[in-house]
């Protein structure tokens, strides 16, 4: 999470926004955000439906597995990687998407 916070100015440059999603409740996430001085949104998905849709909810486990997903302006998933975020990989991908106009609000993300 700290890595995303450090890279916020770069995400801004590429017109991208970051959201964190977990199964923790809101109070826990508020404390987590405060402890790490996070300024981007954290979403509480206690019922796990988001995680199930992103295929990060292992059967029988109470928490999500880690996955980074990049969704373009049209709602299409363009990037999905399991495990801890590879920040350089993410940034290079966002840069590419920006260059292709997939993150530009004026084009609506048309390919």
């Amino acid at each position, binding site marked *: 999470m*700290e890595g995303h916070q450090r890279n916020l100015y770069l995400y801004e440059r590429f017109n991208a926004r970051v959201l964190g999603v977990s199964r923790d409740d809101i109070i826990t996430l508020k404390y987590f955000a405060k402890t790490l001085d996070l300024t981007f949104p954290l979403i509480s998905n206690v019922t796990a439906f988001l995680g199930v849709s992103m295929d990060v909810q292992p059967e029988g486990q109470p928490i999500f597995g880690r996955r980074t997903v990049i969704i373009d302006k049209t709602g299409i998933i363009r990037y999905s990687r399991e495990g801890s975020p590879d920040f350089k990989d993410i940034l290079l991908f966002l840069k590419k998407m920006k260059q292709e106009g997939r993150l530009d609000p004026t084009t609506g993300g048309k390919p």
Partner: protein
Amino acid sequence: MAWLAGCATMGPPKKVPYRLSPQGIVIWEDEFEFVPPSPDWKLLRVEVGENDINFGFMKSDPGGYPSVTSFAYDEEPFGCATKFEQREKEFFKRFLFNAILQFQILERKNIRVVGGEGLAVTVEGKDSVKEEKVRAKVIFGKRGDRVVGFYITQWRPMDGTYDLSAFETFDKFVDSFKFLKKSFYETL
């Protein structure tokens, strides 16, 4: 220069990430250069990952456990802020977190480092339960827009004596440290 001391293996020789200039300066992955410490310091290298140092050096010191000194360069020290004062607060929330120490700031001063402004903070932490203490110096500098860090930690038993010559070695390493090219983030 016998740096990489360790057990000999029968495998193929691994490529080292550095080379030495004729002047004895280390060129690390063609990205950094610095004056190396004496051969009694062993090289530490960590696989790239979040919240890991890039590389460092460590030596065992005379005396009872724990008597060890290590120093390192970290491209991404704990925390997120780009202002040193705020980064210092964030950093010390997590530095040596597992050791559960009470830190006392011995000195804080603005300095010049890696060609720009920096902040040096010297602290001492004590664990009265384990009867251990640590003296550490953390230096924050800038690489482009981002904060980088150098730190040295020297552990001792509570009644042990610090060896400040190790801190002079660290200062020499930091003073000599140069970036040889722009970082990944500066080229985005």
